[in-house]
């Protein structure tokens, strides 16, 4: 079975699907749903078929568009190339797309113009899949552009509210400024190396960094930074996540910012290979730490459910960037693992937000409350998501955050640089703040008292709960069997980020890598998973729980009875109001962490000014950051 064609088939299939849905699907609901589900399932099937050859056999799938093989060592055509790193992101993309498609069938039922919605959705998923599979820089740029357009159009999909349009406009402007930088970078690279194929670029650029290619590096780094919403460019992202329909904001936080991260990894590790210079590492880690911190502190001050989740995905991307920036073997493994975990638990949280929005109609933390009695299954999924994002041990968030800390303190010790200790401490504190903001959401939305308006909310239909269940099972599974995912998925991905000789030889024919002087680093199989045994901890937990349960069963007759009531009651079953009649007083989201906000008044005021909501400020920030990166890379690399 010749599987080299599969990547192109699935990407083009998605675009074809978009076209078909536009043509046939706008009238009839059933045709539209079947087309969407069929296309996304086929794309998923085709790409998952490739998992075995890429990960287990270690093959690299390369495919030349129109069979334009390279001529005397010069790549002419556009090449698709998927190595272990690319495949890792492909799995994330395909999984998120399929789940979003299943979710949005029921979630978007009440909206109109669903034909356009699904067209844009399939365009978005096709472009991200294309971006991750391609081996050609300009093709990656075109896919980024399609992704940005689809994302902007989807953000403005519900154009009744002005805020959505404003968010879409800001996202478009900052996005296009970013992709302008990327395009300029690509062009300068072309001027330098007269080729667009990443493998060949890597072999040419190895060792001889001229001022032009350093400028290209800086511009492209900023371009991909804009796409992955790290700090100076994160404000429009928060608005975009909030305004887009939730199934789309799940795709945003799942794969759109991951595409930016993938681009950055491909750029820094494979094409330019500048990551072994310590000051570049410090720059990337600095970006990561600042993104982490600002993302989480802003999330603590939010009143809207989806905006809070948006700021959290920004801060989790900060984690991934920090981990990848460390550029040690364990660092890249933990970074990729955290990217995967982030897609899982952030997708789950957005789905729960969508479920809450679907059944209650509002996402404002101050108007919600006590939904756990009306929507028990969503609450369970939400709790699993919240616990895994805040890094509680049995869940997957902890496994990757713990590996990030390990790599951070290894780096701190090997380089003897105190900055990494600061990054480690900052990472731990940000993790606690993440827990704090999710406790705030749990109390504000799910537990606490139900306001009168939400008395008759009921559970969301099964088709919306299915993706939630799948994701929560994956969250728990990745957490407990993280060695399995570690050895099978992450190690090959990490090997292919460091050893790119096979990547280059596959595309450009044997020996080109050796000719250009790129040699492999020996990757010893230490995975650093040895200290934490989740399975043993879980077995212990269950045995002790059983023991306690048995003891309570023995003493059952002597213990006091458990009394509870279903209907509204005053007196014995009412909450204690120091004697008063228990009226509705729900400690909503905004009143929590009063003490914390008072302490940090100075910081939060600066943050208010920093997120001014003005398009000019955002683009000014993007341009200044690009200038700073250019100056920094010139000082460092030349």
């Amino acid at each position, binding site marked *: 079975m010749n599987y080299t064609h599969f990547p192109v088939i699935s990407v083009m299939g998605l675009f074809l699907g978009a076209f078909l849905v536009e043509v046939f699907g706008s009238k009839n609901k059933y045709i539209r749903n079947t087309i969407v589900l069929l296309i996304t399932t086929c794309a998923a099937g085709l790409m998952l078929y490739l998992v075995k050859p890429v990960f287990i056999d270690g093959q690299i799938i390369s495919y030349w568009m129109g069979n334009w093989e390279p001529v005397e060592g010069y790549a002419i055509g556009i090449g698709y190339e998927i190595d272990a790193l690319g495949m890792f992101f492909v799995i994330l993309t395909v999984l998120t797309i399929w789940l979003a498609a299943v979710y949005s069938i029921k979630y978007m039922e009440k909206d109109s113009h669903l034909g356009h919605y699904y067209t844009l959705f399939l365009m978005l998923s096709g472009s991200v899949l294309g971006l991750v599979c391609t081996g050609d820089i300009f093709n990656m740029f075109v896919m980024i552009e399609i992704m940005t357009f689809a994302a902007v159009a989807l953000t403005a999909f519900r154009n009744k509210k002005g805020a959505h349009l404003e968010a879409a406009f800001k996202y478009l402007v900052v996005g296009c400024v970013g992709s302008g930088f990327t395009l300029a970078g690509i062009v300068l690279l072309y001027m330098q190396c007269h080729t667009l194929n990443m493998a060949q670029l890597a072999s040419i650029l190895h060792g001889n960094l001229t001022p032009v290619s350093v400028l290209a590096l800086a511009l492209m780094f900023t371009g991909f930074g804009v796409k992955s919403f790290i700090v100076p460019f994160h404000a429009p992202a928060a608005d975009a996540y909030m305004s887009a329909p939730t199934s789309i904001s799940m795709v945003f936080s799942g794969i759109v910012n991951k595409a930016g991260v993938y681009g950055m990894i491909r750029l820094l590790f494979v094409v330019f290979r500048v990551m072994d210079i310590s000051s570049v590492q410090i720059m990337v880690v600095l970006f990561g730490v600042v993104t982490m911190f600002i993302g989480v502190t802003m999330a603590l001050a939010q009143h809207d459910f989806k905006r809070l989740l948006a700021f959290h995905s920004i801060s989790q991307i900060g984690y991934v960037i920090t981990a990848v920036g460390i550029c040690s073997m364990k660092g890249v493994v933990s970074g990729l693992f955290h990217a995967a975990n982030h897609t899982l638990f952030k997708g789950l949280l957005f789905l729960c937000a969508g479920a809450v929005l679907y059944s209650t109609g509002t996402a404002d933390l101050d108007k919600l409350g006590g939904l756990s009695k009306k929507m028990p299954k969503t609450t369970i999924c939400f709790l699993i998501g919240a616990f895994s994002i805040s890094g509680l041990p049995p869940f997957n968030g902890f496994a990757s955050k713990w590996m990030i800390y390990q790599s951070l303190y290894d780096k701190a010790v090997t380089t003897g640089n105190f900055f990494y200790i600061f990054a480690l401490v900052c990472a731990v504190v940000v993790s*606690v703040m993440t827990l704090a903001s999710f406790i705030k959401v749990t109390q504000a939305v799910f537990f606490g008292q139900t306001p009168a308006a939400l008395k008759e909310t009921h559970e969301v239909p099964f088709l919306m709960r299915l993706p939630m269940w799948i994701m929560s099972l994956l969250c728990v599974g990745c957490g407990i069997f993280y060695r399995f995912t570690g050895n099978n998925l992450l190690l090959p991905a990490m090997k292919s980020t460091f050893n790119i000789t096979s990547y280059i030889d596959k595309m450009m024919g044997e020996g080109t890598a050796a000719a250009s002087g790129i040699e492999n680093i020996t990757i010893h199989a230490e995975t650093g998973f040895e200290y934490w045994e989740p399975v043993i901890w879980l077995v212990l937990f269950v045995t002790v729980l059983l023991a306690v349960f048995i003891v309570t069963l023995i003493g059952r007759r002597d213990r006091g009875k458990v009394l509870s009531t279903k209907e509204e009651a005053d007196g014995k079953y009412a909450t204690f109001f120091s004697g008063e009649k228990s009226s509705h007083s729900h400690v909503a989201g905004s009143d929590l962490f009063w003490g914390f906000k008072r302490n940090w008044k100075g910081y939060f005021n600066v943050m208010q000014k920093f997120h001014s909501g003005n398009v000019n400020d955002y683009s000014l920030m993007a341009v200044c950051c690009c200038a700073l990166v250019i100056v920094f890379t010139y000082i460092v690399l030349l």
Partner: protein
Amino acid sequence: MSSFFQIIENIVKAMIFPGLLYATAGGLLLAGLDRKIIARMQRRVGPPVLQPTYDFLKLCGKETIVPHVANKPVFLAAPFVGYVSLVVMMLLIPIGGYSAFSGKADLIVILYLLTIPAVAMIVGGSASGSPFAGIGISREMVTMMAYELPLIIVFLSVAKLVGGDSMNFSLQDITAWQEQNGPVIFSLSMIPAAIAMLLIIPAEVGMQPFDVAEAETEICEGPLVEYSGFPLGMFKLGTAVRIFVMTSLFTSLFLGGITSGIHIGWTVCGVYVGDLLVRGLIHFAICAVITLLCMTFIHAITARLKIEHLFKFYWTVVAGLSLISLILVWIGV
């Protein structure tokens, strides 16, 4: 056959020695001691040392009322999760030279395992749906945010000191290191870290000056306001075991190798019981009591802080102390 014995030994370890009974008994004793010493410091007789045990048994006998606003399954399950995770943590901390499940957890895992009981209480309180609990939860979270920063810095400094050039976070190696060159607290640069840790434990456990989350007077026991009967008993038991876990963690981190010289040869079915008894139990009991004295001393002479003062206190004074020792260790004093 050996795997059968292995299972038996594991069950004994989980249920008897460092597990359920040991942790619960030790916790209740330490909690009783704490109340007794505070009374003595106020020149009053104070309750019998077994008072927490009586409290727990009395609470078992009481009726459990689940308010109609509460989410019943979460409300009733939260105390068990908190208590059991603390007992499991007790298994992972090496006592003397002997650790029940050796090498299965290092400091960062312990740091995160400590959050589970706190989150269990928070989710339990939030599930009870009372406004007092809501405020109690936010205070508990701010306290957690406050003491997490100095706690990680203390762990880093201990790991750096023990690891020498490379950082070693494994509790096993820390105890081994202390076997050779004496307890960590004797090396000069670690004294600020020890003081910082002693200030962190009361906040972690919720003892007087820092129990802003469960302030009986202001917000009626914070998250525990709606609990009664057996679940409340489990929470109180959890707090008691937590005191024991934190003091034994402090002992294993800072007061390690005091009794390293003594070897008593009694062996019962292959386990060096003599060694275990001296180096493990007695050594830990003494150190736990000493640590408890310091905390009770702070408890007896201070009044409860407001939440923002607590946050400022931890992020300036305690974090500063631990930073000093980290820098000293980093320079290699």
